[in-house]
Structures are given as structure tokens and as C-alpha cells.
């Protein structure tokens, strides 16, 4: 009986110690929640300039959207931007604790933006910290900014309280344009490790929109291994996303006799068929099947009838083909296999891959590509013809 009491007391003591909470717990008011990261080239060689955007949790309750301001801001600010330079991200983050009264906490980070100079120098070192830190998440978006990445964190916001949240939502929404890739840290790691697939990252800039500094998407930054080597415009990027089967929805303007229509991509599915040619080369046949509807139209000609719909479909097929060909030409010009053809060859013809792996860039530039697009008609929306009296 006595033993039982001792045991019970011992268990109660252990449980009281262990279940009361972590001994190294961190309360909300001790943490600096990083919401966005910008990485630029430092002033000195081998130096990185790191800027962190941290949420001011108490301030964000009272502030209005768009009222966010940076470090020097007064009460009601919703974020603070802190910058520092150094040779390694981990070191810089620790050094930032000299300036910030809270523990820098990265699990809620939403975006990592590289400045173009840094991206051209290589993003591997910058990504290492975010791939390695146990708290950081691989689903964070990674982007490249034209100019300085730190400027992106200074953009004016409209709906969100922080530029980094704005940026995250802008990229989230790109599935309705399919002209900007939604690249995560995990995607880039996979691409770089594949040895042949060239990563593409969203390419953004800051524009002056009637006195406000707004974020704008330019397309995609193209990489070879971890170094940026060029960029693709919005149409070329969508061409690339078609080949990668990542186009979800979108819209394209189709010229049409004396009218024009916005053909809306409602669904798209692509396949790449690779084959070996007798001369030792490689051929890729890209097949796209999509459903297209009418988003809106110009003029009074009724496009949504049996006579005109086939023309609309043909035109949309032509546009998609052009976009894909433009993407292929650009990729060949840059010598960057953004489509992952090399990876597919390795998967389908591993022996052939061993032969061509060394000169893959050359083989890629010489590759024959055939694009086949098939469009299927979808509805014309809530109206069946333009808002115009019927022709008698």
C-alpha cells in the first residue's frame, strides 16, 4: 500500500513536470514572426544582404489594411523590416537579434525573394538555411525580383497588411492566369537535384502605380542549376507551364474576323511523348487538350454559334501552339531545359540518358519538338450572343 502511494506521488510529480508545458516554450509576445524574406547581394564580395519582414502581432490588430510601414513607423504599424549583411544566413539571423527584441521565428514565412543580382550569382547558399532549418517549411514560395529584393518588402499594400502577404496571395491567385509559376522551395530543390531540369521562378518587379509602389508579375526567371540566366515573359511562361501540365485556367485574346474574343481556358491537360530518332537525336511531341469557353467579346458578331465556334477553337489552338513554340525557342536560346525533357529521357531511356547526359545542353538545343493542340468548346456564359438586336 505504502509503495503504491509512493508510486502514485512519483508519477504525479513526473506528469506535473512534463505536462505543464515545454520548459523552452515560446510565448507569442516573445516571438518575431517572419512573414517574408528578401535576399540580395551584399556590398562586399561573398556577402549576403538579408531583409526580414516581421509581423507586429499587437499592432496588426488595430491597423487598417494598407497602413503598414517599416522599421521607422509609429504605432498601428503591422510590420517591421529589418536588414543586415553577412556571409551566412544563419549568422545574419542571429546577428539580427542585436536589433530585434524578439526571437526571430521562421515557420510562418510565406515568401523568399531573391534580388536579380543575387539570383544571377546563385541561390543555393541562400536556400540552404530554409531547407535545413527544422522549423522552416518547404512549401514557401521562392521568387526573383527585378532589381533589389528588399524593395519588394517595401511595396504598398491594398488588401493585406503586409507586402509579403500581398505577394503570397498574388502568387496563390496565378492559377487563374497560368502565366506565372507557383514555385516552392521544394520544387526548386527537386529541380536542382535532378541535374538537368532548369528551375523557373516567378519574376516580379515594383511599379509606380499612380504614386503607389505596387508589385507586378513579369513572368518567370529562368535558372540553370542555381543561377539565373534569363527570363521569360508571361506568354512564354504559360507556354512552359503548358508543357509542364501546370496550366489550370487562363485567358487569351483571339482575333476574329471583325471581332475579338477572350477565349477562356477552362481546363487543360498536356502530355509529352518522347522518342528517339534514328539519327541519335530526341524528339518531343507535346499534346495539349483543353476546354475553351468565351470569357467576353468585342463587336456584334455572334461568336458563340455553330459556324464561328470552330474558328474560335482553331484560333485558340494556334495561340497555344505559338505560346509553346515561343517558350521552346526561348529555352533553347538560353540552353535551359525548363520542361524537364532530360528528366523524362532519363526515366524512359536511362541508357540513352547516360550517353547524352554530358552534352545535354547541346542535345536539348537540337531537339525536334512537335506541338499538337486540341481545343474543345465549353459554354458562352450567361448570354448566348452579344448584347445587340438580332439581325432580321
Amino acid at each position: 500500500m505504502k509503495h503504491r502511494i509512493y508510486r502514485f506521488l512519483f508519477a504525479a510529480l513526473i506528469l506535473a513536470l512534463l505536462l505543464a508545458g515545454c520548459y523552452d516554450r515560446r510565448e507569442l509576445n516573445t516571438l518575431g514572426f517572419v512573414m517574408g524574406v528578401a535576399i540580395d547581394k551584399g556590398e562586399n564580395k561573398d556577402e549576403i544582404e538579408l531583409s526580414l519582414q516581421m509581423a507586429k502581432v499587437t499592432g496588426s490588430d488595430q491597423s487598417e489594411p494598407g497602413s503598414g510601414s517599416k522599421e521607422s513607423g509609429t504605432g498601428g504599424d503591422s510590420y517591421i523590416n529589418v536588414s543586415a549583411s553577412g556571409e551566412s544566413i544563419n549568422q545574419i539571423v542571429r546577428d539580427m537579434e542585436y536589433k530585434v527584441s524578439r526571437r526571430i521565428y521562421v515557420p510562418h514565412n510565406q515568401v523568399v525573394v531573391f534580388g536579380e543580382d543575387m539570383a544571377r550569382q546563385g541561390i543555393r547558399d541562400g536556400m540552404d538555411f530554409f531547407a535545413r532549418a527544422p522549423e522552416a517549411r518547404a512549401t514557401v514560395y521562392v521568387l526573383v525580383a527585378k532589381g533589389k529584393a528588399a524593395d519588394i518588402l517595401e511595396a504598398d499594400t491594398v488588401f493585406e497588411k503586409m507586402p509579403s502577404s500581398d505577394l503570397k496571395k498574388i502568387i496563390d491567385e496565378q492559377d487563374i492566369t497560368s502565366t506565372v509559376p507557383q514555385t516552392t522551395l521544394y520544387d526548386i530543390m527537386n529541380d536542382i537535384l535532378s541535374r538537368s531540369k532548369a528551375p523557373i521562378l516567378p519574376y516580379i518587379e515594383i511599379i509606380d502605380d499612380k504614386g503607389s509602389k505596387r508589385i507586378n508579375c513579369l513572368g518567370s526567371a529562368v535558372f540553370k542549376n542555381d543561377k539565373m540566366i534569363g527570363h521569360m515573359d508571361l506568354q512564354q511562361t504559360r507556354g512552359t507551364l503548358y508543357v509542364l501540365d501546370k496550366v489550370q485556367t487562363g485567358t487569351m485574346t483571339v482575333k476574329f474576323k471583325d471581332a475579338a474574343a477572350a477565349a477562356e481556358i477552362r481546363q487543360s491537360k498536356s502530355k509529352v511523348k518522347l522518342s528517339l530518332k534514328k539519327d541519335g537525336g530526341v524528339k518531343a511531341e507535346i499534346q495539349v487538350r483543353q476546354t475553351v469557353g468565351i470569357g467576353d467579346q468585342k463587336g456584334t458578331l455572334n461568336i458563340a454559334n455553330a459556324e464561328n465556334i470552330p474558328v474560335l477553337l482553331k484560333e485558340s489552338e494556334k495561340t497555344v501552339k505559338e505560346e509553346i513554340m515561343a517558350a521552346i525557342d526561348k529555352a533553347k536560346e538560353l540552353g535551359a531545359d525548363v520542361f524537364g525533357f532530360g528528366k523524362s529521357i532519363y526515366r524512359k531511356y536511362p541508357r540513352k540518358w547516360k550517353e547524352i547526359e554530358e552534352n545535354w545542353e547541346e542535345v536539348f538545343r537540337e531537339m525536334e519538338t512537335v506541338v499538337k493542340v486540341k481545343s474543345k468548346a465549353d459554354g458562352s456564359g450567361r448570354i448566348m450572343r452579344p448584347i445587340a438586336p438580332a439581325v432580321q
Partner: protein
Amino acid sequence: MKISVKQAGYTAAAFIFTSALLTKGVYMYLRQDSWVAVILSFLVSLIFVYIYATLNKWFPSKSLIEINEAVFGKIIGKIISAGYLFYFFTLIILNARDISGFVGYILPTTPYVVIMVAFIYTCSWAVRKGAWNIASYGPLIVFVSLFVIMLNGLFLINDIELNRLAPAFTFPPIKYIAGTHLLTALPLCEIFVFFMFVPYLQKADGLGKVLFRGLTVGAAALLFIVIRDIVILGDTLLILSQPTYSVIRLIDVGDILTRVEILYAGILISLMFIKISVLYYATITAAARLVKTSSHDYLIRITGALAVIFGLSVFSAEYEHMDWTNRAAPIYSSFFIMLLPLLTLGTAAIRGLNRKNK
């Protein structure tokens, strides 16, 4: 109370599940072909399960220690049994180290000693309550684990790229052998430890059924996990220190359902509780039978204390632990769970002990 075949079978499955969630080693050998090693190791393990079942049929309701004495005589039998005792004890240490490493990965500032003491103490509680107590949790934990594993797979359906399984069969045969050996010796045939539970089984010669059920359910889950990791992680599989955990960290359903890895952590800890308790129990019963004592309490305390001490000091760093698991552990395990049982079966057959028992 005696353990039913169902309870012991699922406990054996839980035993395999634990290692199934720590599959890093096989990816190093076979990357996208790791699933081949799972199937091959299942087939090889079936042979060993047959050997264990035959031994159990020849010596029904006898534990490993008694079989060793019956087959090899008192002195050699005792030496071999002491070897097994050492083996079971080292498994406690290594698994306690595994779970401390895992919890340490999630909570980097928590000292290993806190995790290990808490864990071993909880397991010692279960061991004190007896074999039936441990085994009765088996079915529940297996079903919950299966549910969580399936659910995680479902949440990740958009990240699946089946072509990541290609190309198949491109590695040199030696790598398939090494991968198969690793999986056979580490998670699959480790269920050999259930030999120590034979005296507590409802059916005296039911070990074969128990192990077959455990192996089949365990290997099926292992296959599912390995394929899921490959088709989702692709090339990153090779650089991640916790691939299965990293897969679950990718779950993001509409920005709402994220950070569900805590479910996996909970499951792994529960499974590890079962595994270490089984090993702990096997060690205690082996020691008790070897020194012929019925007082388990002292043995439980001594074993627990030694497990914590050695668990903390066996490896100086995580990379040493990884190196041991991938290189030395399969060979070390093979001696005890492949070679010795084969030797025991052979000697028993030569000495005609199978006929004698019949």
C-alpha cells in the same frame, strides 16, 4: 492472461511500422527502386518466418532461452542465450536513441536525457504490467497508424507524380541485395523477438501465424510508405534527413490544413512505445530465465537505467548513428536473427530433436 494470435500479430505489425516510418537507409541504396527492396525483403523474410515457425512447432510453448538449452546443451545454450539477451538490450538502446533523435529533431533544444528517461520510464511501466498488457495495445495502435498513414496519403494526392518511380531496375544487383538485406534485417525480421512471447501465447505453436500476420500487414504498410515517399519527394528523397516526416510537412490543404506532422509524430511515438516495450519485455524475460529468477522488478529497473546510460552515450552524434544503422546494423542483426536461428534449426534437426518432441 494469455495473448491471442490477433493481438500478437498486430503488435508484430506495429513493431515493423515503427521502422517503416524511418526508411531513409534503403533510399540511399535504391532511390526510386526502393519499393523493389520492400517486396524482395518481404519474400526473404517469409523464409525466415518459416524457420522461426518450424522451431516453434518443434518446441511448442518454449521461449528462445529454453530452446537454446534444449538444442545446444546447458553451457553453449546459455552462452547463445546471453548473446540474444545482449542483442535485445542493444535494440532497446538503438530504438531509444532513434526516438530521442526524432523528438530532438522536432524540439532541438530538448536534451536527449529528458526524452530518454521519460520514454524508458513509461515503457518500464508497461513491462511491469506484463506481456498481455503490451500486446493488447497492438491492434489499436496499428489501426490508428494505418488510418493516419492513409489520410496523409490522401491529403498529398496533388503532389503525387507517378513517373518518379521510373526508371525501374537500373541499379547494379549488389545494391538490390544491400537494400533487401537492410530491410530484411532491420525492420522485417526483427519480429523474431516475439519468440520471447511464445510462453504467453494462447496457442503454444501459434508463433508462425503471429509472425506471418505481422509481417504481411507491416510489409504492406512499408510498401505504401516507400512508394508514397518516392512519388512525392522525387530527388529530394536523397538529401532529407527525415523523408517520411518531410512528406507530411508538405501537406497544405487550402492553407487551412497544414502542420499536420504532429499526427505523424504522435503515431511514431506510440509505435515506438510498443516496440521498445516489446524489446524491454523480451530482455527482461530472457534475463530472468537465464538467471532463473522470478523477480522481474529489479531487472526492469537495472535494464531501464542501463538503457538510458548507454542510449545517451552509444553515439556521440547523429551522423554516427546513421552510419551504424546503414552499414553495421544489418550485419549485426543478421547474425542473431538469421544465422543463429538457422543454426539452431539445423542442429535440432541433426540431433533429431524434432522427432523426439513429436
